[in-house]
């Protein structure tokens, strides 16, 4: 008996709460007339960013591709004349992307970042396939000041061995001094 009364009470409280909300201010906005505020960390359209020197940040390590739960990232590594790795092509199939942000988590270079732009509608699904030229922006995105090659031991143009952060100059292997 007790149980039944409790249940009825609970139903009444619920009805009341719903009724009360009719008189509170709405959280939804009249999109698209009014644009909602989205925090920078919002997970929308993905971009590829550049390092502070304006070079492509992506080193084609494939970590974003492997972590992607829907496998919608495909790329191919290539190398410039000085040994810098970068993607020959970089493709995201946004018609599959679930905006989970795992790629951004996995990226060791801050290259791949999700942005607050969620307005990705197309009549033709094929247009949801973005290549590097569509993904690459000219700025650093959310994370400023980081350049992977400044911490990596690989030498590239204008950064020789021993010039990365925390590195001693290359040793003289011919020296036998203690």
């Amino acid at each position, binding site marked *: 008996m007790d149980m039944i009364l409790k249940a009825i009470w609970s139903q009444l409280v619920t009805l009341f709460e719903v009724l009360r909300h009719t008189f509170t201010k709405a959280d939804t906005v009249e999109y698209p007339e009014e644009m909602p505020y989205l925090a920078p960390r919002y997970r929308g359209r993905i971009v590829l960013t550049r390092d502070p020197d304006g070079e492509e940040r992506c080193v084609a390590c494939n970590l974003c591709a492997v972590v992607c739960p829907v496998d919608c990232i495909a790329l191919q590594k290539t190398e410039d004349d000085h040994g810098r790795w970068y993607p020959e092509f970089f493709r995201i199939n946004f018609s599959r992307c679930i905006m989970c942000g795992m790629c951004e988590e996995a990226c060791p270079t801050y290259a791949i970042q999700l942005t607050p732009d969620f307005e990705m509608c197309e009549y033709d699904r094929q247009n949801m396939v973005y290549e590097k030229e569509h993904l690459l922006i000219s700025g650093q995105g959310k994370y400023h000041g980081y350049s992977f090659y400044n911490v990596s031991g690989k030498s590239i143009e204008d950064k020789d061995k021993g010039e990365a952060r925390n590195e001693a100059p290359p040793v003289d*292997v011919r020296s*036998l001094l203690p």
Partner: protein
Amino acid sequence: MPTIFVDDRAIEAKTGDNLLEVLLSNGIDVPYFCWHPAMGSVGACRQCAVVGYANPDDTRGRIIMSCMTPVTEGARFSVEAENATSFRNSVVENLMLNHPHDCPVCEEGGECHLQDMTVMVGHSDRRYKGLKTTFRNQYLGPLIGHEMNRCITCYRCVRYYQDYAGGDDLAAFGSRDRVFFGRAEPGVLDNEFSGNLVEVCPTGVFTDKTLSKHYSRKWDLQSAPTVCQACSLGCNTYTSERYGEVRRVHNRYHNEVNGYFLCDRGRFGAQHVNSPKRIPGAGIRNAGGLYEPVSIADALDKVKGLLTGKVIGIGSPRASLESNEALRQLVGADNYCNGMTSTEREMHGVILEVLASNLSVPTMMEVETFDAILVVGEDVTNHAPRLALSIRQAVRNIGQQLAADTGISQWHDAAVRELEQDEKSPLVILSPMTDRLDDIASDTHRLAPNDIVSMVEQIIEAIDEDKPSDAKDIASTLLAAKRPLIISGTSLSSPNILKVSANLAAALARKNPSTGIFLCASEVNSVGVAMIDNTGNAEELLGNRSETVIVLENDIDTRLGSALLDEVRNLVVIDAMDNPTTSRSSIVLPAASFAEAEGTFVNNEGRAQRSMATFNPAGDITPGYQLLSALGGDHLSASGWQQKLTAEHASLAGVVTCAPDEQFRIEGSRIARMTHRASGRTAMLADVSVHEPQQPLDTESPLAFTMEGNQTRAPASLRPYTWSPGWNSNQSIHKFQDEVGGPDKSGTTGTRLFTGSTELTGFELSEEASANLIGQVHIFGSDELSNEAAELSTLIPQPYARMSSATAASLEVSHHDGLAFGDIIMTVLVDDEVAERCVVYPMIPGTEALGSAQLSELQKVAGYTSPSDPLRPSLITTDRTS
């Protein structure tokens, strides 16, 4: 079998093993770096530490290196004790002090033993704040990349390169934390087995440069178990693909064939699959003499129309048994030949007789157990390269015997080598010129091919007689051995050399039944096609004028001379690659390469092995046997042809059993060629169409071109790559072995087709014209297919004519002069290690005509400027070295 206790668990240990091997064999993960299953222990890295207890009452124990600890009855150890785990953690932490922040741009990433071990010990944070030591890299040639910063100084590379593979141009230099592993000067690594450094080095110091050019992580590679196509030994490989290209070849452990290592021709030669010379589709030559691309269906219809009269089918020792049999059945047994020259057929006839005889034919791994070896006119390192590595281990038998007598375990590598010093078991080489194994030979004789034959005849006589002579010395060496081995092969194209070697082995075997004979054949399937049919004579069949000739994956124009095809009206060529024969065909059909087709191949020891397709070929490219099946109208699958082969040829019964057939499933699922982490499935082809196509279906095998399916439980003959949780590198192989270094848990793959029972009566030697122009096989340059691999092709030597000073004087030439035969121009190299009256030239593309030349026809070239080193190609020796 001593019983030991590890963390209070009783374990049956194998006598003679070290503790690390026992632990790994029993599924207990212990991290290690410097120990290698084929190279033993030196205790250099301190990573494999465990706690050992002195007696049952000892509760404290002490840290010991498991790789340096023999197992004894009742011994107690702990892998999990706190001090052992923290010790192992601190070792990795120390190794990581100077490690660069490179994984994202490191070719080893994702299959890095150092990554695996770091994760295994749980090290994650670099506490040391000091500066990292850095190094400059070296240019090591077109095959191997170098990034010294990543080194953890485990010394595996030099132990492999110098001690195991006999190389002398890679060493450890410098002192203290400046130890550097590289060459004295930048330059191409000289050893033919340098590619194994990629797998031996547990880090990304030595990486596969050919892979890096079109890099993919291991998890993205679609792979399959394949058989190396580059020589007759049939080493087991994994071939891997991404985006329709063969990206790399890795070693596939086989306990009887190739063990843990491959040669560079095999490892890097498979990139011929990506050659621009590949034939992408069918073509029919039109009236104007040009090829018109047509659909495969039209081309097949056209060929069917030509099949009315007598059709000759020319098979090939580089095509699979399936394709050869399909051709044989299409044209009829009388009109089929295996596509070898008469000399080749004669030589492989000898090999077949020896395999069928009661002489004992060891496997390549067994070669390492023989204690005296005579190499008769076979250029092992260039012609059957992997065998040279085994011979290098065999000459250590005397040292290993010493160690055994002294009670030192074989895995105690440094101690055994210290004990053996320069003592080597006898290795006698009879060859017309220097041999790459000379450095370990106890005795070498430079003899013209005919003189090699007479020398062996003298040895046979000397076995019974007692007259002092060179031959007597060799005979007594062989007689003194517990297990003598005769190695010979087809590299000098002399059937007599093979025959006389067999006779010698038979003579020795009468004295010592443990005698072995190991004969190297010519190509990947030479023995196999000789078993299908070794009587059909291409010259004769083609001489009999036939309207239509079907040539299967064989460059007849080069092999048998271009005149033979002059009279053929309709030349139908089925091949994967453009070559002189293809380009004179009237119809060409695009065959799949080995990486795109299933096939069975019989190696030189008569082992039938299955090679699986790695990926689905593009467009109209089709496996040879399927094209021929379509022509014959029977549309059989690979398994269907395997059954036919067994039905038609009693000797090939093992073809069906050498690997499971297409019906094989593991709990209803196929075996996935891709890893379960393969990426990009919904994006790879999205540039073509956003609607993902169905994954290609495999109608031929139990494997699947997808990531769905089983992998880790596949039997060795179907396992597409080795991987085990926590073991991403090839070191994971021990998870699949019965015990470390033993056979696979699923058994040894391949079926040896010969039981060897017939008594060998002895071969009659035939009349052989004395050859003075000797073609030397080159590991890079003498194999039709691997020559087309982009990077290997840069290592092909330039034409040279090597001769002794006396021969040079008689030809009135001197060192670095030019010598011409027709339009072939060779650089004279004076080398007194060449047998008298012999001129050695390289068997490389373009020198084929020299095969029928005479010394007297060679002309000195006036005003010739020689390349600086004709043996070394004109490589760009400056590469990025920083």
